[in-house]
């Protein structure tokens, strides 16, 4: 048998039939839905008069449009958004699909909820009408985003017409320096290879740095791979990943456990597997990263300076010029010291418990700077409850943060958490696109610890320069 990459093994294990030299009919183990990319798919299904093929392998959450105000009973005031939520409920009831509805205590962002409830298992194919579905590679599952027409196709057939990607391996070795995280690592990688550096590829991350990352950090890494254009991201499941899954999936027991463990042991690229492209990075080069522009690859180490158009390679000049105009920064200025008016901690990238712990650690005994509005939006109800058990909510509140209900919130500002024109935000999210957090609002992506530090300083600052405090 020829050597295969992990990616190729996952595709082969789910290939119902080969359609042509590029496409296969791919079986999908788990399909996640949200309220805004699924309605037209259900409508299409109903227009065809079709049932959902395998309802037990589908689930839905209300995540993107949901308000996050700290109220006990959550009410969606916007009538269109409320209709999206009630429509999702109707569709799920009609087709017997598992739903985590607006006031479900386990409601949250799909990419936080599904893995924390043990639904994501190594070797699965997981799809969702959301680009950040690459997250699940952290557990050795092939996850990727799809459009609404494809959502309809999955509902109708539990399969996808799938174009096979090429194989890329990104090896990272060495210890991440203190004060840096998977977010800094992945931002650095995106900066180096570019916003389309992995377009057309599924990226397998490997190396001693990746081995040393906790599972939640790997979620952050794989989540952001799509910002380099990747069609998927993978980390071969190791003992840490398997432990993470088994702690959350009590149904995997007895014979099934033995079968699962035997299968998971095969989920790695063969030693002589060939990758179309290979990159290598040294984790010791990683400093806290901050985006300066309007694409996630427009990123700097915290001691860096905003680029000057004339210093850029020809191909990047137009983008640099456009981004500089939007973000209102002076070319050549240090990124550190840039004042911020808003801080947002949350999202499917950095809304998990370890992210909140990292931010809280910085905030302990400190306070948000005057003139800064800061909020924490936990990734799910379970994350929020865990944080409250640990007393993190008190740390955030005492520091002057708003402690919110879970949801996607200001990551894409589809609910009422929208920034005003010209407001500059230190954000733990994944996209600094023009208008993403509000028309004319300016987003600087960074890690949770860096965002917390920015809240305290009222400006972008190197978290490593804050005096250590002891809890």
């Amino acid at each position: 048998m020829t050597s295969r990459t992990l990616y190729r093994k996952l595709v082969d294990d789910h290939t119902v039939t080969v359609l042509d030299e590029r496409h296969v009919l791919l079986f999908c183990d788990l399909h996640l839905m949200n309220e805004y990319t699924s309605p037209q798919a259900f409508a299409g299904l109903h227009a065809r008069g079709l049932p959902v093929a395998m309802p037990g392998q589908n689930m839905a959450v209300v995540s993107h449009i949901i308000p996050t105000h700290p109220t006990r009973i959550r009410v969606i005031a916007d009538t269109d958004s409320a209709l999206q939520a009630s429509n999702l409920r109707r569709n799920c009831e009609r087709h017997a699909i598992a739903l985590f509805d607006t006031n479900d205590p386990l409601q949250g962002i799909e990419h936080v909820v599904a893995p924390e409830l043990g639904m994501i298992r190594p070797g699965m194919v997981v799809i969702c009408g959301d680009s950040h579905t690459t997250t699940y590679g952290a557990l050795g599952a092939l996850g990727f985003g799809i459009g609404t027409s494809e959502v309809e196709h999955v509902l109708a057939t539990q399969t996808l017409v799938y174009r096979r990607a090429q194989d890329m391996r990104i090896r990272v070795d060495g210890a991440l320096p203190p004060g840096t995280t998977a977010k800094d690592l992945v931002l650095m990688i995106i900066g180096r290879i570019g916003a389309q550096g992995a377009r057309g590829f599924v990226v397998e991350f490997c190396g001693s740095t990746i081995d040393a990352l906790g599972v939640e950090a790997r979620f952050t890494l794989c989540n952001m791979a799509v910002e380099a254009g990747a069609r998927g991201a993978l980390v071969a499941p190791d003992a840490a990943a398997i432990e993470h899954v088994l702690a959350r999936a009590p149904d995997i027991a007895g014979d099934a456990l033995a079968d699962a463990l035997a299968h998971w042991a095969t989920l790695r690229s063969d030693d002589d597997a060939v990758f179309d492209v290979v990159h290598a990075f040294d984790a010791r080069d990683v400093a806290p990263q901050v985006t300066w522009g309007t694409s996630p690859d427009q990123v700097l180490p915290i001691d860096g300076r905003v680029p000057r158009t004339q210093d850029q390679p020809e191909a990047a000049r137009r983008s640099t010029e456009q981004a500089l105009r939007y973000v209102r920064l002076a070319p050549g200025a240090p990124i550190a010291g840039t004042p911020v008016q808003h801080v947002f901690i949350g999202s499917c990238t950095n809304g998990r418990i370890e992210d909140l712990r990292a931010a809280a650690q910085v905030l302990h005994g400190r306070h948000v700077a005057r003139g800064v509005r800061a909020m924490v939006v936990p990734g799910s109800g379970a994350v929020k409850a865990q944080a409250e058990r640990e007393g993190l909510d008190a740390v955030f509140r005492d520091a002057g943060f708003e402690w919110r209900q879970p949801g996607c919130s200001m990551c894409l500002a589809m609910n009422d958490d929208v920034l005003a024109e010209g407001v500059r935000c230190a954000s733990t999210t994944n996209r600094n696109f023009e208008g993403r957090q509000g028309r004319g609002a300016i987003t600087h992506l960074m890690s949770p610890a860096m965002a917390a530090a920015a809240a305290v300083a009222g400006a972008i600052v190197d978290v490593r320069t804050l005096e250590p405090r002891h809890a």
Partner: protein
Amino acid sequence: MHERHRIEGRAVALRIDNLDTDQIMPKQFLRGIDKSGLARGLLHDLRFDAAGQPRPDCALDKPGDPPRLLVGGANFGCGSSREHAVWGLLQFGVQAVIAPSYGEIFHSNAMQNRLLLVTLPTDVVERLMADADAGGDLRIDLARMRVTSANVDAPFELSPRYRLKMLSGQDDVDLTRLEQARIAAFAKAHHARHPWMKDVAASTRARLDRS
């Protein structure tokens, strides 16, 4: 299904690399449960100022017919999976985009909706942009597989699947449903091999409801 061998007409150049789907269709237009009303949202912030007034310098809203083609930068349609971006382009009247490269999910969404995406090298795209700026028509011929304008006559490639979709409008759901028996057999064998992959959503929800 009507045939679409040729797409021809006015084109607008959008000199923006990594033009993400957030810009193509901003969040405030994603609140529907159907596909309607997206023409207004298309490239909203480029076309309308903060007060909602049309920007006079925006070529997209010039009097007369809307542009039938867009000529864009690299990684056109990157970012969010929202298919609303493709629906909005079509509702606005755009039938084809020409660019050096595309976001992956956007590419799939375009194919599903028969929005033609033509990939050409950057230098050819730049020349097409210049011709579009000069007001000349662009033509895409799917029979000859060439893009032409005042100063360009360039061949392009398209996957057989995409080309067939453009020409015949074949529907993936209809085609895949012909494979239902094969899918059922695959699922049975797959779940016999990996029982812990079966109905995980339903069984997890049931477990949580019990506890």
